[in-house]
């Protein structure tokens, strides 16, 4: 299991990286390498040149802009996991990150790498889709931003430019005073890719009524999906109504079967975990409301 030969460059800037990518059609970008390197080792990927962007200063870091938290592509997953900004502004991402791989893979793996890899069961893409994040890419033609939902096309397939790279992800920060989150996932082992994952974020008004809700489901189809549960807005989000709303919304899911889980399982569990994630989000929001 040794990779096929490739050349290696570590460009000094995003522009230089884009230039290398533009002149080498089968170049691949590497950052943390936690998914790409196994593919290289098994020779399922065989680029002629690896463009290492991990040390580009302009791509690292977490910054707050009005209404938005911007995470640079090469921000390590462990840095995001430990970030107080993420914890306070993006609690859903904070809840999801401990489910990403293992501690050693999070030490190397990057936020942008997970997005660019587009595994349908990966947690960071799920949160990006659920929260309607914006994904920013760059190539020699310039910068492009697109909604996460448009970015993910299928398994390991994105709308990123052929000769470009993902530079940042922009998560909208909910400004409501009372926001709660819930995250659930099931897999054969705790650290495996999810058979099903569910991410929910809820905002409540002082009376405990839902003013905004987001729900994403991962692992079920060929990409993470945002479910439309807007019918719960204006309600107290409790009782059977939640499960019914999720079940109705889940009609759009197109679950797949594989060695580890049947399609029927994925649908059934998506509904269960979707409802549980919402339930947890509501409880979390109520707790935060009570603490204020």
């Amino acid at each position, binding site marked *: 299991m040794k990779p096929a030969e490739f050349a290696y460059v570590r460009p000094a800037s995003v522009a230089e990286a884009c230039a290398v990518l533009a002149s080498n059609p089968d170049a691949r970008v590497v950052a943390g390498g936690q998914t790409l390197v196994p593919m290289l080792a098994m020779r399922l990927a065989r680029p002629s040149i690896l463009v290492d962007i991990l040390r580009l200063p302009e791509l690292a870091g977490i910054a707050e802009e009005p209404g938005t938290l911007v995470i640079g592509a090469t921000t390590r997953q462990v840095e995001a996991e430990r970030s107080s900004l993420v914890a306070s502004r993006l609690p859903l991402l904070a809840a999801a990150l401990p489910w990403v791989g293992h*501690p050693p*893979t999070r030490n190397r793996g990057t936020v942008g790498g997970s997005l660019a890899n587009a595994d349908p069961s990966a947690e960071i893409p799920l949160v990006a889709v659920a929260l309607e994040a914006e994904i920013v890419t760059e190539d020699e033609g310039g910068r492009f931003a697109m909604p996460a939902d448009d970015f993910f096309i299928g398994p390991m397939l994105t709308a990123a430019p052929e000769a470009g790279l993902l530079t940042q992800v922009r998560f909208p920060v909910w400004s409501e005073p009372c926001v709660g989150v819930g995250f659930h996932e099931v897999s054969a082992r705790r650290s495996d890719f999810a058979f099903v994952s569910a991410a929910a974020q809820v905002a409540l008004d002082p009376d405990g009524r839902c003013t905004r809700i987001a729900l994403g489901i991962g692992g079920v189809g060929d990409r993470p999906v945002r479910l439309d549960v807007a019918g719960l807005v204006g309600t107290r989000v409790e009782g059977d109504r939640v499960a019914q709303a999720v079940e109705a919304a889940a009609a759009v899911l197109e679950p797949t079967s594989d060695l580890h889980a049947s399609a029927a399982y994925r649908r059934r569990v998506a509904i269960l975990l979707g409802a549980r994630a919402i339930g947890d989000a509501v409880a979390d929001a109520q707790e935060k409301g009570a603490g204020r």
Partner: protein
Amino acid sequence: MKVALLVNGAVREVDVEPRKTLLDTLREDLSLTGAHAGCEHGVCGACTVLVDGAPVRSCLMFAVQADGLDITTIEGLASAPGELSVLQDSFCETHGLQCGFCTPGMILASHALLEANPAPTRADIAEAISGNICRCTGYGQIVEAVELAAERLRLANAPRAAAGGRP
């Protein structure tokens, strides 16, 4: 490509193909064979080393990517030949191993945990070593080893007054 690695405190220069993993470079070019190849696709953790103090899989990293980085291998954990760190000694005390193949990775992952968290719970330990597969022990005596090391290190670091009148 020429690469300079800071391995166990010393600068080591190697000339490697870009496709050579850090694992193979440590083992073949630097004769540091304590890190092991178990799966070479990032699942088993037998190749774990510390990069800038954090455990990573050396099979998922090319040596060229490690240029200039601070790398600690199992060989760098003890103070001198024949000596063992408190954690290594604790693995001996509880027999937290059998065949020894996963052990260097297991110890480095645990070492990083104890650096960050002097009083880990059982769940903390399980999480810290969850990326390191052991086929021999069922993990029980490994968890005991880390608990024992944490306790020993806490006692060793405690101010005398706090040691509770121990001899």
